[in-house]
């Protein structure tokens, strides 16, 4: 059995990993912590936070800093989860890729390699309405999906 955990760095995705570890421990399953980094999202944040800046260089510099921090931040979260997983005796590894989150998640989740996909109910913005998540991602994922709150 192989379990895919969608990790976006949020508290909810970390809780999702804990549930995946729980299943993996019993089933001797392999857990893959999967994260997609979307440069466009970072660019949008950089733009909106820097919009009052007079110099385009500031925006670009800010975007580079934000991108570097995003990558560092997700690596820190995944490292902490891997440590916990290994401490619990779970066979886990990670995969971080760049691209459009929805496309890459569906590509990986529907690759035929997984018996279960585990994800947080909310993202990095905290508790919000979860309809779009269900509509955009969960509905198109073929294996069973565990949504963690």
């Amino acid at each position, binding site marked *: 059995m192989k379990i895919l955990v969608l990790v976006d760095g949020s508290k909810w995705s970390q*809780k999702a990993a804990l549930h995946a570890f729980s299943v993996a*421990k019993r089933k001797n399953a392999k857990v893959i912590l999967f994260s997609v980094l979307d440069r466009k999202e970072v660019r949008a944040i950089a733009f909106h936070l820097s919009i009052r800046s007079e110099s385009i260089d500031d925006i670009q510099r800010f975007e580079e800093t934000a991108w570097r921090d995003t990558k560092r931040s997700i690596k820190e979260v995944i490292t902490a989860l891997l440590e916990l997983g290994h401490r619990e005796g779970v066979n886990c590894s990670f995969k971080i890729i760049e691209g459009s989150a929805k496309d890459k998640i569906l590509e990986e989740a529907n690759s035929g390699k997984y018996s*279960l996909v585990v994800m947080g109910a909310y993202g990095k913005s905290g508790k919000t*309405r979860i309809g779009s998540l269900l*509509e955009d991602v969960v509905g198109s994922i073929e*294996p069973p999906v*565990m949504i963690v*709150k």
Partner: protein
Amino acid sequence: MVKFTDLITRKFQNIAGSRYEEILKAYEEFFLTEEEMVIPDIKSILIPLDRYTTTVPDEVYETISAYPNARLQLVYMIDENVCRLIRDTLGEEDAKKFREKEERRASEILSRMRDRIRELGIAWAEDTVFGDKSEYVESIAGEYDMLIISKHYGSETTRTHTVSPVVFRIVQYVGRPVVLY
């Protein structure tokens, strides 16, 4: 809590200290504290079923088998709103026929699942309930640690709308992990 304290101290070193609890409360949606870093224990699972729940895939049984000490509750729901609609439009006799047919279907589906669960050696109970499919599940979900539910539960789905609106509502309002299949 050590890791969290370190994080707060690093990110908010000028304001942490006495305002620690205040910060913790304000940002609780974003931090997973050490206390929350615990592998969850699932002791009870609710599995709502209905006429749209035709098959339960093997992967779901595989997930269920990861909780050998959990108590499973299978509930087949007969839609009272549909029954009322039939009674109002076609009459009492047709409503009765609908209900009897649904009860037969419940018996078939529960029997199929019972066999698979028995193979897993997990304790279970089953029930057939006549009521509102969403309201009933929401009202009892709090008594269980997890829900396992079909994406099609409650209504027909289409190629473009792959999750039923009833499931949307349940996932939105139930504060438990939900496995959708």
